[in-house]
């Protein structure tokens, strides 16, 4: 009996509060971000594609939500996964895709494979030699629009060796930041296959494979 009385009072109080709210109060509804389907190859049907008008601009990479991930074979029997936790940079989306650009800087000392000993080994002269080569970079040299995605050719520099590579940056989603008013976000993901020996990392190829699959996941906030 007492319990049901409390419930009634609470319900009446809530109803009164909702009536007191002014009609011109700002809406607090969380905006829904635009998203792309992630089942296709990257140029398939998109539920919403980022139109040039809404996404044109320069974006600063959000290091907390951007990463460069990799997988590499171990003794040719399984895959080991890892990532670089510190990724910075910026990209510009221009109405003319050819004028768009992207520059990413990776801190090789932020390599993380969930094993401290292995991470230390990866940072040593046996692999990334992070003391001598403290940064890895990817800088676009040519960009083409492919539907909502971007075909990007650029210079990838790892371990002091620069090579031209190509990848498709697939549009993931865009929209206003739900917690930071006025901030516009956009995200892309690109995959890239490289051979580490082509970048001068020739040690222990039997133990850790030569082929490395890179996945570059970036989230940018409009400046």
């Amino acid at each position, binding site marked *: 009996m007492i319990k049901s009385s409390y419930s009634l009072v609470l319900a009446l109080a809530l109803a009164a509060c909702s009536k007191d709210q002014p009609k011109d109060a700002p809406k607090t509804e969380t905006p829904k971000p635009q998203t792309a389907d992630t089942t296709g190859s990257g140029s398939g049907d998109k539920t919403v594609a980022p139109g040039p008008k809404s996404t044109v601009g320069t974006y600063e990479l959000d290091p*907390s939500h951007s990463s460069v991930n990799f997988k590499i074979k171990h003794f040719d029997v399984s895959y080991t996964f890892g990532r670089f936790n510190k990724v910075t940079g910026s990209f510009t989306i221009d109405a003319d895709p050819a004028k768009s650009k992207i520059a990413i800087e990776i801190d090789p000392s932020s390599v993380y494979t969930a094993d*401290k*000993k292995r991470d*230390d*080994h990866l*940072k*040593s*002269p*046996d692999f990334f*030699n992070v*003391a*001598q080569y*403290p940064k890895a970079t990817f800088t676009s040299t040519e960009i083409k629009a492919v539907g909502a995605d971007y075909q990007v050719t650029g210079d990838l520099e790892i*371990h*002091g060796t620069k090579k031209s590579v190509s990848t498709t940056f697939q549009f993931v989603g865009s929209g206003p930041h739900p*917690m930071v008013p006025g901030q516009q976000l956009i995200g892309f993901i690109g995959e890239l296959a490289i051979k580490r020996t082509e970048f*001068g990392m*020739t*040690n*222990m190829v*039997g*133990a850790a494979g030569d082929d490395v699959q890179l996945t570059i996941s970036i989230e940018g906030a409009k400046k």
Partner: protein
Amino acid sequence: MLISTLLYSVLIPGVIAFAIALVGRRTELAIATAIFAATIAGSWSVVGRPELVPDDISRWLGHIALLGAIAALASSVFRASERRVWAVRVIAALGVSYLVLRPILAHRWGMPTGLLVVAGAAVTVIVYGGALDQVLRRTSPRVGITVALVSMATSAATVAASGSLTIAQIGGGAAAGVGAVWVLALVRPAAAPSLAYVLAPVSWAVVAIGMLYASMPWHVAVLALSAPLVACLGLFAPRTGLRAAIPVGLALAIAGASVRLAITPPPVEEEAEYGY
């Protein structure tokens, strides 16, 4: 595969050094050449054919051994002049420390601080080499070469435990070279003072690379490099039957402590705070 790589980087340099030291009748030049050849062979088996001006630090140990061999030759030529011998030592030490530090000088210290770092590092090369030289000259050939072998093996083992197998294997090649000289000394003891000129730069460089380019903590590096210095303390022991064994025992104790410290896992770091 890893085992065979290790065998190649140790066995082949050892055999080459043995042949050179044997054919050269263990003259100063032959021993210096033997250690240089062992380091080159170790480097070749691990990181490939030597290059004149390589980019990566792991390919410079052969050059450092060559610098040491040239210093050994020069000091034997200038033997009569103590001042000239010291000049050779200083130039070689500066050269070795510059070769090791060169790739990181600009972005880690900048100039002119970098030059001071090179000079400071050169002092540690001179101290390390001097201690090794004293043990080789003031003890019996067997004891001196054993201390040299323990010192080089300590450098290689600590860097292996500190995250660079490449550098450790090349250091292992140099240690195999000393091992070959040690075997010859067991059969027919003969002094090998020139050993310090080649071995000290290589051994010092292995530890320095481990500390500056891999994850060797500085206190492990200091302890590893103290092996010949601590062995020198044995020179002041009273003349008893055990005196000869003291430098070797001290060097072995430092070797054990260094490796033990190097393999001790570091304290767990706290996770960074998460934010949106």
